[in-house]
């Protein structure tokens, strides 16, 4: 009978079954080891417990061994680092060894060191009292309790941010019990201080918790949080077990074990039962105060799983779980469920009994349910023969259905085939179907890859027809990473083998493989492999790591990604002396321009040096000119300008050299002017300087400057009349306009007057304007009527229109006149 070893816990059934006979036989006494096992059928780590054996001195290094779930040794080493406070596994099956000064060393299952990190200064100074390794919403987290009774937490070992949780008020000795609860995307610690419970978080908040209990609460000495973080069990001093929801708001039951002794292990078995363990005695407690006692003949270790517990004993691994509902429906004695009937029918059919027909008839209407139940139940079975019996029943049932979707059946067959493969003692991953659904197939494949079962993994991918990018090619990449570590093959050959096998399958990162090759000290192989990498952003950092700077620079420039080029350039700049660096980039124009651009913003001095080095005198001079403007003191400015002049001369830019020279002279003049006239002149242009001199009535000086700097006559006129108008020297202006040979036309005079808004003065000049410009000037000074008259005299319709455009509402009379003129012109034109 399938239900023979079922045991009842209240109204539900539990079963315990043997998964493996342990390969280590009798050689291992678990009581002499610290045991850490990874969930989801993961590996076991055993560390010799030296503290319990007084005969072994402290100088002896304990042995650390990793086994598969089936007890097959994977790796072994002698621990020669600090004192391990806690062993645990991450969700990626990395072994975490937490030492008593807070250092966490991370190893893979082959005990290859991966990395290490600390848990903060305080842990280092005060030592670690206790450790919890937990599943957070972000992966695997670590919480430590320091000897100063503070809790530090890392939510994910992949994102190391150590946060200190709030302090429990008045905690002056070690908490009697504590644990980590992850709720609403946040990990908090629940700390028991005697009979008080506090929830503390990293936002600096603490909340005192109250629980509903029938007797006065005694000190809590142990707690267990369920695998799914939804339930919690507390264990008090007097042996009372309180079971409730994780937020402590709901109580399910109180159960008195009457054991004053703290259990050696106190865990949940799936979400439905709490298991307490004292030496060899194991007590399973249900939420309705039911219990099942078990006795083991040796020390065992319990591993929490999502749907039960793995029990690792001296010579076997057993699995204890609640009997899945479909299994119960089919195999429970006297079950009348459709699945049960179908299963019976199928068995009768095998025996060639006509009772098969009778059974089928009883469930005829629910045959689809029956088939589904058998398929589901098959999934939960470990024994292949029973799986196939159930699947046969499902197929048998399907014969009577016309439109049953075959997909669930096919999927289940595939899953079981995979499960049976990985459960084999040689592989040793005893996953249940429920666990696989949670873990997902890609993760299982990753785990096989990590155990270096490449071939099996690829076969599974092909069997399940997974897309290449997430299936086979990913495995190949891992294979390649593993392959490059095999030192017996030569670089050339290996690079070709890898490239042949991988081709340009999408999703393959050659840079990762190259990185691995580099890690194992094969730079030549790495370079060969990198050639296959299409992404420059991946090639370049690695090439730099390999000190192939020139190659990195070329690749970065080829990619056009300037940021990447900058990255290499600055790396080069830091690792070389300046002269060498300049030499290295001088023949690469792209690199040069980019570096110059960087200097332009960050280090103009260096830009000048670079130009100097390259004999680019023109640009060097420009740098100097720019630099001169940044000087506070005039003497510095003059000095730098003199240098600029020299550089321009070297660059054969006579014009610029001359201009610089003039600027030097101008600056000197300006200094003199400032001293003499006590007004600001520096930074004015020559034009502005003369303008200001005229306004300030220093006509003589203005004249001197004009001659000195050879200001063209026309512009000097402009300068002069503008300045005169601005100074309000109207008499002077008029006198000037009557000079024998005026260089400027009269409109210019009109304009400068209008610029000062002086219509009266402006009108003086209008009459002397040449006829073709007269209309425009009359408009400017606001004499619209006169403008219209002149336009008419000029017989220009164009000009008339211009006047018209200027007419506003108040100029109605002018408007009419213009229109009249236009009319006349038009009629005249027709004639």
């Amino acid at each position, binding site marked *: 009978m399938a239900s023979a070893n079922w045991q009842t816990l209240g109204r539900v059934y539990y079963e315990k079954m043997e998964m493996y006979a342990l390969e280590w036989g009798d050689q291992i006494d678990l009581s002499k080891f610290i045991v850490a096992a990874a969930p989801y059928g993961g590996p076991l780590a055993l560390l010799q417990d030296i503290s319990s054996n007084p005969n072994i001195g402290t100088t002896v290094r304990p042995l650390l061994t990793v086994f598969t779930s089936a007890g097959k040794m994977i790796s072994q080493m002698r621990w020669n680092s600090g004192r391990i406070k806690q062993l645990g596994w991450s969700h990626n099956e990395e072994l975490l060894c937490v030492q008593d000064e807070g250092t966490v060393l991370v190893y893979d299952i082959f005990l290859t060191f991966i990395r290490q990190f600390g848990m903060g200064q305080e842990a280092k100074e005060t030592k670690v009292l206790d450790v919890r390794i937990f599943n957070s919403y972000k992966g695997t987290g670590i919480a430590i309790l320091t000897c100063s009774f503070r809790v530090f937490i890392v939510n994910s070992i992949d994102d190391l941010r150590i946060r200190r949780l709030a302090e429990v008020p008045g905690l002056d000795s070690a908490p009697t019990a504590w644990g980590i609860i992850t709720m609403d995307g946040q990990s908090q610690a629940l700390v028991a201080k005697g009979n008080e419970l506090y929830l503390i978080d990293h936002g600096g908040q603490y909340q005192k918790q109250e629980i509903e209990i029938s007797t006065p609460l005694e000190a809590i000495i142990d707690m267990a949080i369920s695998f799914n973080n939804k339930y919690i069990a507390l264990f008090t001093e007097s042996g009372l077990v309180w079971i409730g929801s994780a937020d402590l708001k709901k109580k399910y039951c109180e159960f008195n074990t009457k054991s004053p002794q703290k259990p050696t292990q106190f865990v949940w078995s799936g979400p439905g039962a709490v298991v307490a363990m004292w030496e060899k005695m194991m007590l399973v407690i249900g939420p309705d105060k039911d219990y099942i006692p078990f006795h083991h003949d040796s020390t065992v270790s319990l591993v929490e799983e999502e749907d039960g517990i793995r029990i690792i004993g001296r010579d076997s691994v057993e699995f204890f779980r609640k009997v899945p509902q479909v299994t119960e429906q089919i195999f429970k004695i006297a079950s009348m469920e459709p699945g049960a009937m179908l299963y019976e029918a199928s068995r009768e059919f095998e025996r060639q009994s006509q009772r098969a027909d009778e059974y089928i008839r009883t469930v005829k209407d629910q045959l689809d349910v029956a088939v589904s139940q058998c398929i589901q139940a098959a999934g939960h079975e470990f024994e292949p023969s029973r799986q196939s019996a159930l699947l046969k029943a499902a197929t048998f049932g399907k014969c009577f259905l016309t439109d049953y979707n075959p997909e669930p059946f096919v999927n289940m067959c595939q899953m079981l085939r995979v499960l049976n493969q990985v459960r084999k003692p040689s592989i040793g991953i005893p996953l249940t179907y429920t666990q696989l659904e949670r873990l997902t197939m890609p993760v299982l494949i990753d785990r096989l890859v990590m155990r270096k079962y490449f071939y099996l993994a690829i076969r599974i991918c092909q069997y399940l027809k997974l897309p290449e990018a997430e299936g086979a090619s990913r495995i190949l990449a891992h294979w390649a990473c593993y392959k490059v570590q095999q030192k017996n093959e030569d670089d050339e050959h290996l690079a070709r083998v890898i490239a042949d096998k991988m081709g340009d399958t999408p999703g393959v990162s050659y840079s990762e493989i190259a990185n691995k090759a580099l890690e194992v000290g094969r730079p030549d192989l790495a370079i060969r492999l990198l050639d296959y990498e299409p992404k420059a952003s991946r090639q370049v950092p690695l090439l730099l790591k390999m000190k192939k700077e020139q190659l990195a620079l070329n690749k970065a420039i080829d990619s056009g990604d300037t940021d990447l080029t900058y990255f290499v350039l600055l790396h080069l700049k830091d690792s070389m002396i300046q002269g060498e660096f300049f030499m290295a980039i001088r023949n690469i124009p792209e690199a040069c321009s980019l570096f110059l*651009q960087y200097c332009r913003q960050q280090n103009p001095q260096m830009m000048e040096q670079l130009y100097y080095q390259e004999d680019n005198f023109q640009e060097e001079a420009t740098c100097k000119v720019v630099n001169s403007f940044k000087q506070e003191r005039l003497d510095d400015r003059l000095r730098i300008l003199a240098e600029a002049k020299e550089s321009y001369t070297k660059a054969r830019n006579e014009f610029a050299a001359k*201009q610089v020279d003039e600027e030097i002279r101008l600056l000197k003049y300006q200094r003199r002017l400032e001293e003499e006239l006590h007004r600001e002149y520096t930074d004015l242009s020559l034009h502005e300087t003369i303008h200001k001199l005229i306004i300030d009535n220093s006509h003589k000086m203005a004249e001197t400057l004009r001659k000195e700097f050879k200001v063209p006559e026309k512009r000097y006129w402009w300068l002069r009349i503008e300045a005169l108008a601005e100074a309000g020297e109207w008499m002077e202006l008029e006198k000037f306009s009557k000079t024998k040979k005026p260089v400027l036309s009269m409109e*210019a005079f009109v304009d400068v007057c209008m610029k000062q808004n002086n219509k009266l003065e402006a009108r003086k000049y209008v009459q002397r304007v040449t006829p073709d410009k007269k209309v425009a000037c009359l408009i400017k000074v606001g004499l619209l009527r006169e403008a219209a008259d002149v336009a008419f005299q000029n017989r220009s319709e164009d000009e008339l229109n211009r006047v018209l455009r200027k007419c506003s509402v108040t100029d109605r009379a002018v408007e009419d006149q213009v229109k009249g003129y236009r009319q006349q012109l038009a009629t005249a034109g027709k004639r």
Partner: protein
Amino acid sequence: MAGSGNHLGNGKLNLGSLRDYYRRELLECLDKCNGTKALVWDDALTGPFGLIVEYSLLKEHDVEKMMSLPKDNQALAPSSVQNIIFVTRPKLDLMDQIAQSLLKEDTKGGFRKEYHIIFVPRKSLLCERRLKEAGVHGSVTHIEEFSLSMIPFDSDLMSMEMDNSFRECFLENDMTSMFHAAQSLITIQSLYGIIPNIDGKGECAKHVVDMMMRLRRELEGQEPQITPQIDNLFIIDRTVDLLTPLLTQLTYEGLIDEMYGINNTSAKFPPQKFLSKNESSTSDMEYKTVVLNSGDELFSELRDKNFSAVGQVVSRKAKFITAEFDERNSAKTVGELKHFVSKLPHLQQARTELAKHTSIAELIKEATDTEEFMECLHCQQDLYKGEDTDKVCPYLEDCIGRREPLLKILRLLCIQSFCNNGLKPKVLDYYKREILQTYGFQHLVTLGNLEKVGLLRPHGIRNYITLRKTLKLTVDTVNEMNPNDISYVYSGYAPLSVRLIKFLARPGWRSITEVLNMLPGPTFNEVQQIPVALRKRRSSVTSSHSSIADQKVTLVFFLGGVTFAEIAALRFLAQQDDGGSDYIIATTKIITGSSLLHDISAKGLKGHITDGPYVHN
């Protein structure tokens, strides 16, 4: 923050989906930080972001506060949010400001916050290195990137809004912005399919296309399988046509940009003209901001018109609206009234639009009617027609004498240099000396820069005449009201860039090889293979006339900037029967001659050309 973005979907290509793509990416970025957030802005990004998301949407994603990145060593304004997110371009000076703010935060204490940086459009190793050097890299929790680089402006227009890209590419040889351009082409292709045919002219254009091809290879064929919605890409360096942007644009939108500056599709105007009758103007009134895109029906009609045709349209529109409103009085039956009421919201909107554009048009008319404007325009026309370009131009001399804005002088000077195939050394030196003496010695650097990018050059090979003749750059009779040629956008000058595009569409570039060889940079064509399954099905071979639905779509990408007048010319081209294609325009920046020259003038020296709108009068 302007606009809902509805107008983006009205074109041949739905640029709304580009906006949606960016919105999704941004929100994903924001959602990576749990809890309330404050955004600290690099000010240059607020405009573009305003076109992508509205504040209310940010609020829904827990953004409670927005502030500018503090300058000059100031601390961040205090706030009670859980996350502070810096939104910034990857520039070193900005990193220094962020580092300063973070260090200041350290000393503040108080409520614990997390700090994040979103780089737009890309993360930068260089910047992260800078943060590390400043010792603040560790206090930043998330460093994200938000690839916003090609901002959809209108149903046929996108801009990367990179202010200094012309300077960086053509003066300083820094191709960073070109890499971003290549990446935005990848984004565009991921949304609208691979563009099968690429034509280009110019060094940068070639560089961008090469990088884009390379980036595609890096994608390892993981591109989405979409039937191409864009048939051609035409990509061109601004340096191929340096003449066009120097001339004063004469379209409505072009003039607004020249006079008031359009930034991220909106412009600011002095408020006086926008007052209703009973409001009185006060001196401290704020500038009136007007959003200018095709969401505004009247604007979309006016924007590409020559300004002299604008008055006519506006008055016609005014009459029409008045007539429509009068219908209310004539409406007798219930049915008629109902019909009227249903039109009312639309009418009211039309009336607001009308009032707005009447005011803007008045402002512009005041400026264009001035003697100065007309004279400047005549001078430009004389120059591009090749009259007396080899002598010192008396008008230009007078402008210098009058100390008119330097940018105006430089524009005219560069036009003369272009149209005369460079200036005689004597003439050039005379001008340069005049400018240095009048505007100050610091412009020795400005003039040097102009020479480096070729805007100003000594006498060289005479090819302007050939360009002008072959490409029909100048047209004597222009119909500004009902144009029949693109030359209407400059009242007599047809943009060289757009002429090239027209020749490319029909009859093809082979006919103008001589001209192409005269213009700088390589001419190239690339074909990107499209899987057969994704190819567009063309209508039957027998139908000789392609219908509108069959019209090809060409993406025109101007590297280094494009003017609104050129955009208008392209839109005009697309409407012609023999245009052959619809045009979507992309650019690194929408420019005017003044903003272009401003970009390459000497920076950070005393007496620098003033910032702000480059008013041209």
